[in-house]
């Protein structure tokens, strides 16, 4: 079940990433040694402080997929209220069993993560510092801090795109 479904997703991804204009911020998405481990690269969405920088995503898929959600974390450090700065762990409701639907696929998950970049949720912070700036409404400090880390840890072109 999981393998077949993942094979199907792989086929769909081959067709739509990165050629499809529908997902301009998903640069790569590929299985690694097995269909149960994927890597992706995203670019920061337009009009967010993340614009112009790139991050890697590490996706682990349980054999009960799609009944259970994949687990996704950032591969390189990112400063965001809902991402653990040290581990890359993402606080996103659809990644929890309780809110996950088997109707979603990996592309949907990454789109949700991209949305989270532009729409942080200050009520469930994993990064207190930047989340406090958001709560205080100090947007220039918020944007500044994010950019400071984006310059330091964002993937550069010469890092190559994960493959």
């Amino acid at each position: 079940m999981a393998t077949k479904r993942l094979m199907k997703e792989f086929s769909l991804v081959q067709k739509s990433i990165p050629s499809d204009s529908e997902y301009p911020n998903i640069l790569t998405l590929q299985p690694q040694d097995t269909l149960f481990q994927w890597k992706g690269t995203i670019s920061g969405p337009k009009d967010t402080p993340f614009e112009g920088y790139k991050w890697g995503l590490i996706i682990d898929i349980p054999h009960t997929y799609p009944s259970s959600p994949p687990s996704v974390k950032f591969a390189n450090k990112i400063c965001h209220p809902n991402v653990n700065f040290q581990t890359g762990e993402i606080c996103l409701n659809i990644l929890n069993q309780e809110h996950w639907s088997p109707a979603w696929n990996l592309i949907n998950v990454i789109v949700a993560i991209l949305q989270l970049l532009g729409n942080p949720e200050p009520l469930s912070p994993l990064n207190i510092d930047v989340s406090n700036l958001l709560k205080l409404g100090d947007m220039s400090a918020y944007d500044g801090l994010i950019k400071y880390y984006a310059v330091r840890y964002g993937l550069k072109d010469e890092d190559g795109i994960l493959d």
Partner: protein
Amino acid sequence: MNGYTDINSITDPTDFKSTRVPKLFEVDSLLRCHICKEFLSSPMLTHCGHTFCSGCIRRYLLNTPKCPICSKELRESNLCRNVVLEQLVISYKGLRKELLEKVQIQEEPKNVPQVTESLVIENAPVASTTPKPEVIYLDEEDSAFDDSIDEDLTILLESKKRKQTVSIDSILKRPKPPLQRKITTESGTCPICSKVFPIEILMGRHIDECLAVPKPSSNYASNSTYTNSHTSLGKAKSPSTEDQSYYQPKESNTVQQKLTKLDYSSLSTTQLKSKLSKLELPTNGTRNELETRYNEFLILWNANCDSVQPKNPKLLRSQLAKWESAIKVKANGTEKLGKAGWSDLIRQARSTMKSKD
């Protein structure tokens, strides 16, 4: 169903996006299950109005008693068969490949004048080089379109007012290009037996077969019929070869009674083993494996009861065996295709894509 499938045998609704009738994308999507993304197999309607494969929704409800789409509370007892939809899916699957061919945009030289029937025939070899991102069907019968459908389609197509260098009529009447199997010399390593095979064989039927080989410790019946009917070649069999069974279900294949869930807390391992052996299932493994085995068989069996074309129970046992070995393979981390295997697969997928453009 496990095992890697031939990448070219994987269909999805986007196959229609760049055709003359992109709206067929919607039809193709609507006939698929939200969970497995395959065409609905024994579709079950929920009381909230959503539809899933019987097996998919039963498996999901085992741990989560709610609808995957709308999150309303849902139990197996709220599921209801949808026979007309099942027959519609079977019928659509049978004509999909031909439909896709007929709506494909053909690239023709700009200066071709009015295309006539005779020219069309001359053009046939050109058409035969057009790659098919489609399943290859065993059944080659050519009759899915009757005249009235042709007419409807012509109207539909004309309403699109797309620029064309070839008359629609000629596309609809164009003789079917000969089937072509992609021949590749690339090879990959089987994740189960570690032998090297041409990638086509590996992705097509080898892994299915390899998984179906009974483990010495178990008493699974190996069943070649099952293996054959689920290779990339067999799974898309047109219903025309199976009319008999779907309009008049065969008595011999009719599955009797649904199985019930077990209350494991009040069941000793010996009792559980005897339940399994009554169902002709293996009784080896840990307690957890025994329970998992029963649960999965329950899903396969009950979903089969919902089907208008029930399979022989032997096939269900072999399906269960494949499912179990896939899980074990995943747990042992030995199903690695290896970097080379993936890049082959990816290269293959890319070349398919390129030739499609």
